[in-house]
């Protein structure tokens, strides 16, 4: 495919230069110029601009849409440097990518121009898959360009030879920086970057990013920060935007469902679109959705179209096969989750279908960009809302995409758990001076606000756990030497660091192994479970926990029946069941972005805009306006109504499922105290529904201030603190921090600890620590995570502040059109009770009932069997 520049007749090349005399590029050596023109290309403006910035010794951020030649732009300055033989010898350029696969792919793409131009540049990758002997050799004899991941960089920096290895480093390229920054991985990377700057003062950085909300955040990330001074920023180079995408929303002929996420109604229409297109990527939000859509498409696949499935739980080999088939053009469509959001060019995709809600404008733009990886052709995308609220969200997202608005995550202060991990890593590399290390760390943008006091707490944590009760001095991991510097106690500490490096804490996963079925239905299989058979992939332990043996579920496009769990494997047999039982759909993984939520509220508040909506949706909203009221931009609409002997309260904050769940937990506690007898609640991205035994509506009409009290911001004070003591989400957050910070180990050398055992002990640790040292650095880290992570407290706080004094209460005699979707999710989504003890009480009650009613009820699983 690639032709060397020398193979072209020189005359032709000369003519090209003569015809366009302005094609002269001062920074581009001759052979590069010839290489471009030989391929019939010209260097793009942003590639030249970036080259000029790099030559001038600046750090730079390139923002470019997919297909703009971003990667080549990022490497051009390095290739030009390395054209001169005298620049070679040391490791010259480090390239960091969030995905291992991307590093491998980039190597392939980079080798073509290097070979074509006859450059003598050695490019190598270093990932978790690289052999130990190759790693050894890379330290001794480094390549010119090393392609690697953030975790591998941390490992290299924690070794004694980091100083020699990186001493001559000139350039570092961060690919997909938008996906790395503002995450814990990005925090760790920023600290490694700070160390690299200290080792190699002449180092210059290039960041490559998709379009983001605020480029300045990434520009600061790329530049060293000085404490107290004004923020330093890297130069900004922006590529011209490509042709605008053609985005449409499926106007289904079927009735658009009120609730649910399956998009079952639209699958015939999706199938027709796949058939008509050349190659289609179908994005969904969760693994369960992917399995469902894949299975339903195959059910109607009369044309035997090559449709494949790709998600993070599938076995790696299986995923690689799908990727290769895609790249080779052998597939007609791939159903995938966010696993294909990033990176690699997977072939000739001409249509992207997004099933379900897009959740964020930037996420949608990124997915749409997967189609037509050529800048000058428009990407074609089709959004398929699965329910009525999602239709509103799709409409808002399309408008945002047309206006080019972005809503990527906001920059946040660097994680304290990551800081602890890094400090230990630096001690593993060489003894350090605490003051010097503090200054180095504070030069990393995420840690520019770090106080010396907090740094000292982190240092104390690394040394002996950092407890007020100094009991562990004699076991210290790092110690102060006579000269004041800190060094590690012994080699085992460094070994343990290497085993636990990184910030990705996987959910507890079980392998899914295929076994033969265990006898006919109804007859329990009692023999030992046979463990032969292949591993299909991995599944969350929490999902399997909800299944009883013989329950069926979808995995890898097949209906499987659970046979049992043995150690870390879920054994499953193929099932002939018609429909799988998919218990508790976990909803969209990503919460609705604040920006899209704002737009959805604006759309609801502007009836004049409804004419762009499908008729059935506009009628639904109109009906809501007549029967109750519509949420407006700033007000908080609360509806109360009786139904089936219970009383319901539905509010519409539009702040995402996580914030609503937290609100539900806190609100039910308050209602409990106020004697309103709440029983349970369910939350989705748009609304929260609480039901109770007492008539909430009448209580609030009698004394309207009651609602203001219920929703007062002070629920984020004592109530929150009280609840956090118990919240499983908080304990999981704490566990992640404890692992990242190095309190407990992922793996003991030579002895694997299962996730379950780790989790139990972190729960106990959490309880004891909270009681005795509530300001411990790990609890601070966990609280900071909870503010934005699984509990989304920050967003809840903003909502409560916004709604203060602006609550609109509608006491209705029956449920409203807008409430119908969330009411339908009761029983489909998991319901949250106030106290976990209710579960125990329920089970104990069963025992009492059994005693009363002999003979004993058959031993059936009690989930949902007893109603109170």
């Amino acid at each position, binding site marked *: 495919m690639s032709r060397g520049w020398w193979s072209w007749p020189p005359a032709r090349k000369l003519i090209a230069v003569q015809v366009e005399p302005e094609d002269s590029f001062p920074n581009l050596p001759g052979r590069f110029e010839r290489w471009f023109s030989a391929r019939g290309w010209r260097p793009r403006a942003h590639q030249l601009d970036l080259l000029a910035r790099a030559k001038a010794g600046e750090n730079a951020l390139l923002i470019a849409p997919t297909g703009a030649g971003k990667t080549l732009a990022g490497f051009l300055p390095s290739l030009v440097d390395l054209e001169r033989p005298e620049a070679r010898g040391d490791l010259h350029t480090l390239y960091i990518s969030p995905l291992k696969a991307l590093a491998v792919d980039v190597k392939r793409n980079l080798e073509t121009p290097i070979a074509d131009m006859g450059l003598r540049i050695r490019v190598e990758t270093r990932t978790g898959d690289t052999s130990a002997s190759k790693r050894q050799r890379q330290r001794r004899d480094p390549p010119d360009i090393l392609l690697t991941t953030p975790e591998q960089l941390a490992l290299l920096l924690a070794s004694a030879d980091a100083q020699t290895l990186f001493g001559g480093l000139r350039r570092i390229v961060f690919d997909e920086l938008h996906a790395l920054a503002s995450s814990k991985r990005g925090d760790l990377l920023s600290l490694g970057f700070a160390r690299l700057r200290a080792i190699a003062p002449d180092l210059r950085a290039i960041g490559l990013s998709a379009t983001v909300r605020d480029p300045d955040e990434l520009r600061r990330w790329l530049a060293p920060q000085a404490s107290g001074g004004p923020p330093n920023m890297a130069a900004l180079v922006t590529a011209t935007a490509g042709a605008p995408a053609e985005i449409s929303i499926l106007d289904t002929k079927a009735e658009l469902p009120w609730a649910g996420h399956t998009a079952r109604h639209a699958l015939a229409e999706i199938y027709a679109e796949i058939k008509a297109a050349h190659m289609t990527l179908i994005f969904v939000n969760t693994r369960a959705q992917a399995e469902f859509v894949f299975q339903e498409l195959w059910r109607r696949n009369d044309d035997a179209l090559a449709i494949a499935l790709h998600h993070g739980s599938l076995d790696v080999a299986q995923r690689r096969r799908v990727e290769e088939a895609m790249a080779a053009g052998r597939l007609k469509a791939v159903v995938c989750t966010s696993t294909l959001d990033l990176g690699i060019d997977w072939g000739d995709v001409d249509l992207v279908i997004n099933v379900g809600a897009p959740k964020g404008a930037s996420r949608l733009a990124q997915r749409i960009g997967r189609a037509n990886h050529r800048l000058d052709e428009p990407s074609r995308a089709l959004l398929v809302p699965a329910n009525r609220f999602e239709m509103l969200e799709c409409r808002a997202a399309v408008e945002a995409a047309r206006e080019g608005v972005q809503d990527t995550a906001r920059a946040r202060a660097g994680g304290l758990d990551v800081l602890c991990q890094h400090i230990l890593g630096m001690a593993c590399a060489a003894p350090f001076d605490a003051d010097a290390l503090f200054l180095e760390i504070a030069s990393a943008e995420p840690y520019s606000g770090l106080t010396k006091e907090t740094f000292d707490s982190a240092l104390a*944590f690394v040394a*002996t*756990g*950092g*407890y007020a*009760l100094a*009991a*562990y001095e004699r*076991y210290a*991991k790092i110690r102060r030497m006579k000269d004041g510097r800190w060094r590690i*106690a012994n080699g*085992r*500490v460094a070994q*343990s660091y290497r085993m636990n490096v990184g910030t990705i804490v996987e959910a507890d996963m079980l392998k899914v192994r295929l076994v033969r079925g265990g006898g006919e239905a109804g007859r329990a299989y009692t023999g030992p479970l046979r463990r032969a058979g292949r591993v299909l992939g991995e599944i969350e332990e929490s999902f399997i*926990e*909800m299944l009883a043996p013989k329950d069926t579920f979808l995995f890898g496009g097949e209906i499987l029946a659970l046979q049992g*769990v043995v150690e870390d494997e879920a054994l499953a047999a193929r099932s002939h069941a018609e429909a799988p039982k998919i218990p508790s759909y976990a909803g969209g993984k990503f919460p609705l972005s604040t920006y899209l939520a704002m737009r959805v509220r604006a759309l609801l508040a502007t009836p004049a805009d409804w004419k762009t909506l499908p008729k059935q949706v506009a009628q639904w909203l109109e009906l809501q306006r007549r029967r109750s009221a519509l949420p407006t931009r700033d007000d908080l609409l609360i509806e109360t109504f009786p139904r089936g002997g219970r009383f319901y309260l539905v509010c519409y904050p539009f702040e995402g499922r996580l914030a609503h769940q937290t609100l539900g937990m806190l609100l039910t506690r308050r209602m409990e105290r106020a004697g309103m007898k709440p029983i*349970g609640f369910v939350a989705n991205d748009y609304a929260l529904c609480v039901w109770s035994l007492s008539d909430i509506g009448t209580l609030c009409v009698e004394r309207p201030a009651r609602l203001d009290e219920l929703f007062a911001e002070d629920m984020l004070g004592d109530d929150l603190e009280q609840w956090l003591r118990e919240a499983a989400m908080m304990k999981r957050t704490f566990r992640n921090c404890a692992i990242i910070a190095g*309190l*407990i*180990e992922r793996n003991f050398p030579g002895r694997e600890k299962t996730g*379950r*055992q780790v989790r*139990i*002990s972190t729960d*106990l*640790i959490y*309880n*004891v*620590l909270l*009681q*005795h*040292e509530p300001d*411990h650095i790990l609890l601070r880290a966990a609280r900071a995570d909870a503010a934005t992570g699984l509990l989304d407290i920050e967003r809840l706080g903003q909502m409560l502040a916004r709604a203060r004094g602006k609550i609109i209460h509608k006491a209705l005699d029956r449920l409203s059109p807008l409430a119908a979707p969330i009411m339908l999710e009761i029983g489909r989504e*998991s*319901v*949250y*009770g106030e*106290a*976990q*003890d*209710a*579960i*125990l*009480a*329920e*089970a*104990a009650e*069963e*025992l009492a009932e*059994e005693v009363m009613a002999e003979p004993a009820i058959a*031993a059936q*699983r*009690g*989930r*949902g069997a007893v109603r109170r």
Partner: protein
Amino acid sequence: MIADPAGALFWPEERLLIVADLHLEKGSAFAARRVFLPPYDTAATLAALAGLVAAYRPRTVAALGDSFHDVRAGERLGAEDRGRIRALQAGRAWIWIAGNHDRDLPNGLEGETCRELYIGEIVLRHEPRPGQSVGEIAGHLHPVARVAGRAGSVRRRSFLCDGERCVLPAFGAFAGGLNIHDSAFSPLFGRGGAGDDVIAHVMGHDEVYAVPRRRCLPD
């Protein structure tokens, strides 16, 4: 006998309080391997025990073995915690039953030591013995039960009883747990099945809930 939700058994007639598997100094045992668990587990465990002593005013306290996490726990036990133990022992009899983690009592501690304690028909020992179940009260196994309901599942420490034998939950703040469906329980309580009458008394916040074993889930 009263099963207290804090994880102890109280025998009113004898005014005897029974706790199992305190695992004092487990945190410092981990610290010696450079896993710096909070050094407050001993204090937390003793504080919980003090709460029970204040509530029941027992004449005798029996600790069913593994009261100390390892043989060197005594060396690490701080002066304050030693003082807390002394305060608990004041004015009552105290019996340390030996466990597999603590065959010998740390130096300088009060209280009687023994391998087994017989009181009438009842025997108190650390490790339950298969085949000799009648009236046995033991610890060692750290039973926990997992119970599922509509709102998810909970995993809690639990007493496990079949009317003849009772295994106590671990009392220590950092003591882990073993699911009651683990095979370690089968020699004592059978494998379960249709006629299973073993009951897990599951520790709630303010109450102990009696749940049939077959209603509990494996991990």
